[in-house]
């Protein structure tokens, strides 16, 4: 089972090593781990996508919470939340294929951020699922380079009407 877990951590040296070390020492599998600043300079946010059965994930959550430098841990499982992954992708694109690719990217609400003679660089954000769908479609053209940030997530606001881009796909 895939869980998205968010941890607010103290912005001190070694925190990333501590968290990553704990995961490897305890044999937990992680798909992605993203660290970024928050609005408060004292804290960073880590978003971790972990795979495991309920018992393993429960251990992951508790072990994270136990680290002195981890302030708060939340598992988004069973909550209403939105998640986003950001991707940059350079795909081979001869002038003849360019329009075709741009159209595909447009359908995904992606953006072309760089155009070269033989390639296009595309930016797309969305769920992992959505990103993978575009990757699959572009693969036949020849993917030259691909970079993804990994997932970040947030609980939905309470007054939210519940509609987001996800639903449109």
């Amino acid at each position: 089972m895939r869980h998205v877990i968010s941890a607010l951590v103290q912005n001190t040296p070694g925190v990333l090593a501590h968290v990553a070390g704990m995961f490897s020492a305890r044999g937990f599998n992680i798909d992605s781990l993203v660290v970024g600043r928050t609005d408060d300079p004292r804290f960073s946010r880590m978003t971790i996508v972990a795979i495991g059965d309920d018992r393993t994930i429960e251990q992951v959550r508790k072990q994270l919470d136990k680290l002195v430098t981890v302030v708060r841990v939340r598992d988004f499982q069973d909550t209403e939340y939105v998640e986003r992954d950001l991707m940059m992708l350079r795909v081979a694109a001869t002038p003849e294929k360019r329009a075709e690719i741009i159209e595909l990217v447009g359908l995904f609400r992606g953006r072309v951020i760089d155009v070269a003679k033989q390639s296009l660089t595309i930016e797309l954000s969305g769920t992992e699922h959505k990103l993978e769908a575009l990757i699959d479609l572009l693969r036949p053209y020849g993917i030259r380079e691909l970079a993804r940030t990994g997932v970040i997530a947030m609980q939905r606001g309470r007054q939210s009407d519940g509609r987001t881009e996800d639903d449109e796909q």
Partner: protein
Amino acid sequence: MSNESSKSGKSYVGLTGAQMFNEMLVEEGVEVLFGVPGGVLLPIFDALHKSTVPFILTRHEQGAIHMADGLARSTGKVGCCLATSGPGATNLITGLANAYMDSVPLVAITGQVRSTLIGNDAFQEVDTTGITRPVTKHAVLVKKAEDIGRCMSEAFHIARTGRPGPVVVDIAVDATTAKLTEEPSLEHDLPGYRLKTTVHMRQIKMAVDAINEAQRPVLYVGGGVIISGATEALRALAHKARIPVTTTLMSMGTFDESDPLALQMLGMHGSASANYAVQDCDLLIAVGARFDDRVTGKVDTFAHKAKIVHIDIDATSISKNVRADIPVVGDAKDILEKMLPLIESKDRSQWLAQIAQWKAKYPFRYVPNAKVKPQAVIEAIGKLTNHDAIIATGVGQHQMWTAQFYGWRRPRQFISSGGLGTMGFGVPAAIGAQFGNPGKLVIDVDGDGSFSMTMVEIMTAVRYNQPVKIVVLDNNYLGMVRQWQELFYGKRYSGVHHPCPDLAGIARAMGATGLRVSEPSDVEDSIRTMINTEGPVVLVADVEPEENVFPMVAAGKSLHEMDMGRLA
């Protein structure tokens, strides 16, 4: 955020970082500091020169940290040690891991190279916080004088609260030479360190209901009971509800073994009565214990007829190895005291009759012969010390026999490496316990292999007049490994023969009294002589070399599938 340490209202302006370090030792009530100096510690040692905190120079940093550990285990106070950068710090690793596995409160201070050199492979530089993080509760690097006070105060706070553990404070040398120009803040900055203060009454009620309904309950208690000071609450609860109690290696003595409800130790070398009771019980109440594999045997069949209540302060311990039906997270003493008035008095005579029958049928036993039996030595020590001494051990057969045969009466009496199983722990741990308990009788029951690893610290005991007594059960083997080779590898002894020179003579050369006993009939007298001789004494007992520890639950077997060995 707590701010325990600035209550004195003192001014620290004008002190160097090293002097501030010393102030913090005083403020935290450190009674002795164990360690070895080195280049980056020179400023600190200069501050210690005038300190009221005595510094104990050990022969090895491992000795220093195990001494701090022995002091902490035997007193409940935070142990403290000091080591230089590089090899000094790496020599602490075993001691840190040892304390971490057994939840022992320690603060280990290490020197670090100048902050501007960090990362440059400077002389005696290692990434101490990086290396120690996986084996400590917390590890911090301090690069500025003004952070020394706060970081030290936080370290002691973290070490002693919640589930205790070792904390490393790695201090760059330039932080110790710099002067404090402003009043340093000692206020803790630990937003991620929250202590659990409230317990769910709902969980307590569920646990109580389960206990009141149980026909065949067993209390399985671990080191957490000692740490939280729950010994009396445990006794009251066990007696009111008439529940038999089995203890782990970490909690020997927290339930008086002369009590009819005592099942003694459980697990791989536990008593048959404890193991049968656990396998037959309908409710297992685990308190401050963590279902270690040496306790559970084959985990799928552990307490397989029972519902499991698990009381522990560390939420990660719950359902980690064995799923708890009723988890109760919090302090053991607090929880047991809240449960007590809700527990119904029961007689449970049928269950207790069964327990009594097992106890009568399967006491810990051995077969005497013409040689000195190691178990007999331990029984004699128990008898001649009135079961009241502080006993440390190494790791191996002698450790298991000590747990089985001494006859434990009170908590903090048994000082032994449980989780890590660290050979060499005994000698320094006993010395540390002696420092923490002046005037009390402290005995290290050691194996020849374990003793050899750290016996050099006898010199420390001699120098600082610590009258520890050390009994070496000398079987000329790494006995525990030999036992496994005998039982599971067709007696193909490989790398376990351990011929010893005259260990009593070595002890004498180090300034201790050295004694030797080789005849069963002399055992009691030699122990009496040892106890009555002033100063450190090493008594070497030439014991039956191929004696085995029984009962034994082989790896992968269930607790009820014990091998009773030649005792059956």
